[in-house]
């Protein structure tokens, strides 16, 4: 993902595709690399509505304020071993497909490594944004039981009010078998 912020424009988030490594750790992209308006539509409307009020101060900085993080501030690069790829594929049921997929993951980790620069001394990790709220307890009453009649109608495959799924857990083929399978794949 690439965040760009240029004065007076909308924040634009690039689509979550494998990110090109050159776009990380560098200065923001040059003009023309993202969509921007001279004045965003909502600002135009606001100014039309109340051009006399100049008391509005946007919290969005007028100019980009971040600094790129130098390579030496970061921990060593994480290399993903084939064993780890295997484990991740089994745990999360993702398919890295080929080396480019693994590279993409390594770059994503590199991007996240920038978080190490932040000083978290004395700050507890946050599990939930609700951490300062009391956990709401519900009375033990039956209220909602029947959303599934709708769902069953949408199910691709069903037998007499049961959902149908493939048998058990289909075991992932071993790495050697997968490599053989991938030889013939489209990648």
């Amino acid at each position, binding site marked *: 993902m690439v965040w760009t912020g240029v004065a007076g424009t909308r924040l634009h988030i690039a689509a979550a595709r494998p990110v090109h490594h050159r776009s990380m750790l560098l200065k923001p992209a040059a003009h023309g690399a993202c969509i921007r308006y001279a004045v965003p539509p909502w600002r135009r409307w606001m100014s039309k509505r109340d051009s006399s009020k100049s008391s509005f101060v946007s919290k969005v900085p007028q100019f980009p304020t971040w600094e790129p993080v130098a390579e030496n501030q970061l921990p060593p690069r994480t290399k993903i071993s084939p064993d780890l790829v295997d*484990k991740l594929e*089994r*745990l999360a*049921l993702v398919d890295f497909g080929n080396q480019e997929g693994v590279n993409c993951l390594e770059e994503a980790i590199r991007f996240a490594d920038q978080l190490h620069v932040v000083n978290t001394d004395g700050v507890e990790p946050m*599990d*939930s*944004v*609700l*951490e*300062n*709220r*009391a*956990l*709401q*307890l*519900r*009375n*033990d*009453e*039956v*209220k*909602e*039981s*029947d*959303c*599934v009649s709708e*769902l*069953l109608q949408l199910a691709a*495959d069903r*037998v*007499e*009010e*049961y*959902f*149908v*799924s*493939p*048998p*058990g*857990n289909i075991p992932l083929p071993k790495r050697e078998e997968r490599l053989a399978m991938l030889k013939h794949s489209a990648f």
Partner: protein
Amino acid sequence: MAASSSGNRILFPPQMVGVVGLEIHAQIHAASKLFSSSGVRFSAPPNSLVACFDASLPGTLPVLNRRCVEASVMTGLALNCTINRKSLFDRKHYFYADMPAGYQITQQRLPIAVNGSLTYSYLGGRKRNQVVTKNVRIKQIQLEQDSGKSLHDDHRNQTLIDLNRAGVGLMEVVMEADMECGEEAAAAVRELQLILQTLGTCYGNMAEGQLRVDANVSVHRPGEPLGVRTEVKNINSARYVAKAIDYEIQRQMEVLDTGGTILNETRAFDSKSGFMPEPNLPPLFVYESVASVPAGVDPTQVVVIDRLKAILPELPGVKRAQLVEEYGLLPEHSFTLVNEVGLMDYFERVIQKTKAEPRKVIGWVIKELLGNLNQNGLRLTQSPISSEALAELLNILESGHISTSAAKVVFQEMWKLPEKSVKQLVAELDLELISDQEQILQICRRVVDAHPEEVRVIRAGNKKVLNKLMGIVQKETKGRTDPLQVRRILEEMTS
């Protein structure tokens, strides 16, 4: 050597012992599920008790059921646990079709209750009439979701999924590996079941899946390090608990004895932790007393430990001690009374209606009634003899109208013909004790005169032969004489 519950001895290689720990999943008895408000019922039409949250539809969120929290706190109190004032929820990730979310909400880091203990007993000794009492440590109790049910259709190579059970509240009770064999494990499970049923937090019907047991089994020589653990999963019948565990202990010992090693298949799965904090649920707080509830929080909306302590019912252990004290029963009798469903109530009803002493009544209830029920594979609710009928029989016995042996005969007839009254049967069977002294004396005289050889032996010093004469008198009178009276008369006549 320990005896398995079936009575067969397990043959241990020298000094090896079994080490058994248990993870018991108890379905919380509540109207709705743990995090959603759909109903909870066994045997409902498939997929009829499923809320959007249970089907893991995007945009749905968990809302904790207060009744489930109370149930786990009460269970924790009954098991002498420390109740964690603050506990946390986590997600345990794994993929299976009967768990639509791809994770189960559980309490892995900080569960609701920890560090308790359970005292359990079983009847041991050679004659199985000695109460053996043991203790097992409770590691923790955690709240978690149940999964849906999958039915495997091997013909069409597919699995059918029913989500009625998905999201039902469970208490997982973890018992440390303090047990040595199947019998101990089964007794511990039985005691937990009784406690949960007494509390009302779980009905504990194993056949309906309300109580499921996973056993962790290993073997070792005492003093040496623990052996490799294997898991016996999802035991859902009380009878099978002991058998399955003993079988696994036996299997492991045989493997080790022949020089093999124990393999743990589930360990490989375990090493993937897949845990993360549940971000949709802040910490769960329970409060010591109403006074400790912070200002601004509605006390009726929170769980207060003192309130639950006040409504804790009498636990089975207390009941057993009371029976011993109140009625002067032996520990093994009170153990049986509490252990068998409904038997204690039956016993107390009989006591109310009869003048007979509790110690006599208990003999009839356990030996005659329970004995016959077990022989015929019947439950107490199916007993042909009601507590009133038994009380009547005991009253007739107490008043001296019939002898003990006659009463046993009447009992058998009552079993076969429950519609006939006790008085009727006694009359029909002609079992009333002969009250005419003269008649008894005459019969005794006759028997003594007819057996001069036996009389000589008795007079010579062998008193045991008197029993033979007594038997003959009883046969002649069809059991209608009081044995003590007959013995006295015969002793006089043969002195």
